[in-house]
């Protein structure tokens, strides 16, 4: 068993050594979990819960037994999750494409370095036109889009993992649902008008 002195010392050390210290760091860390919230289950969002229920009812039909209702709920949850992931990725791409000064990290560093040298003791001899052209030049069109895909690949791959999991969950839920409806014969998939 730990002594009181040890517990106190651990607490003090933890307070002294964990987490960001600057206001900027704390603000950034505070937003970590809010970056895209994709790790949270759909059930944590009341608005999405309502959509899951509505979709599950649509899938199961009105006279479904509890097992089929449960399986329909799984499909609906995966489908709404999938929609949420795709929406987050779409928003991310739209927002990044709309950033007017988006540039590669290497270029941004080079621009900052040049501006730093200009403010230093021995500024380089650069014409104002050339300086403005260099500082304000950013990739456009396909180059910009391709740069975003490469440079932001880490974030995009993370979203892709969520999408893959949601797709997998939905596929197996649909297969289970189809098997259950086939076994119970509870629900005819064919609309009467089309038989």
């Amino acid at each position, binding site marked *: 068993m730990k002594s009181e002195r040890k517990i106190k010392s651990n607490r003090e050390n933890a307070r002294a050594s964990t987490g960001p210290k600057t206001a900027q760091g704390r603000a950034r860390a505070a937003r970590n979990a809010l970056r895209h919230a994709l790790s949270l289950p759909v059930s944590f969002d009341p608005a999405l819960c309502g*959509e899951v229920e*509505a*979709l599950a009812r*649509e*899938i199961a039909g009105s006279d479904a037994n509890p097992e089929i209702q449960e399986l329909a709920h799984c*499909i609906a949850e995966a*489908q709404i999750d999938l*929609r949420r992931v*795709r*929406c987050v990725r*779409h928003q991310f*791409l*739209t927002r990044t*494409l*709309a950033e007017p000064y988006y540039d*590669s990290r290497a270029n941004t560093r080079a621009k900052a370095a040049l501006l730093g040298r200009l403010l230093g003791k021995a500024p380089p001899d650069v014409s104002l036109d050339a300086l403005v052209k260099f500082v304000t030049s950013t990739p456009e*069109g*396909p*180059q910009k*889009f*391709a*740069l975003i*895909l*490469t440079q932001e*690949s880490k974030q995009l791959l993370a979203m*892709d993992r969520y999408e893959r999991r949601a*797709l997998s969950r*939905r*596929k197996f839920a*649909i297969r289970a*649902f*189809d098997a259950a409806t*086939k076994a119970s014969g509870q629900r005819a*998939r*064919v*609309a009467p008008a*089309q038989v």
Partner: protein
Amino acid sequence: MTSAPELGLFGQPQLLEGENAADYHELVARLYAAVKPLDIIDEMFITDVASLEWEVLRWRRLKLNLIRALELEALPAFLNERFDYDLRSAHFVDSLAETLQENLPEDQAKSARTLAYTYIRDNADAVDTVNEVFAENGLDMDQFIQDVRTQKIEELAQQYVRRKPDAVAQIQKLLADAGRSTDGLLVDRLVKRSKYLEHIERIDRLTAIAESRRNASLREIDRRQAVLGQTLRRSLQEVEDAEFKVIEATPTKGQSAA
């Protein structure tokens, strides 16, 4: 269930700037017409196929545009070495006339085009006048010719990328004369701009992911349609069996079984 889709539960189409919503809806409508979904799960898969196919097309278009951008970078460098700019061409006359119009006194501005024409025919008076106008306005004829040539080269490269027949023929001839090809120019450019290779690899990877997910959705549609076929066959068999049993179980006296 084969009418126009309601996308509410599946989300809005995820189009980026410059993409045409009408084209996307047409794609969805064509898939609906082809697959004829029988329930909301089929609709989910069709929406997936449409969305993923759209993504595949987006990545292919991006790759093509990136390669065109590379061509646009590679061609001017090649043309700068090989292109023989004709100082008697309409392009030069137009450019010179435009510059003269901006720099001549107002009352002479209208004669700028005539002056440009006579200048290229080496008319001594016209040459003197043009030189005077350039000198008075701090312009340098050599620099002007170089700028106009660069402009022409850029226009030619743009037209080539847009596959304008005249520009394509002209550049193909220059390439053939130099024993080069556009592929070779692209490779040279890719070596200098290795970042592009990384971009292209990334786009290829995204295309492969979208294609594989689209194909998985198509397989699920196939599987469900096959299940539907089996269910229908079993239902029809049950109907036929029931009818047969009814006829056999309750024979009516004095009537034939047929």
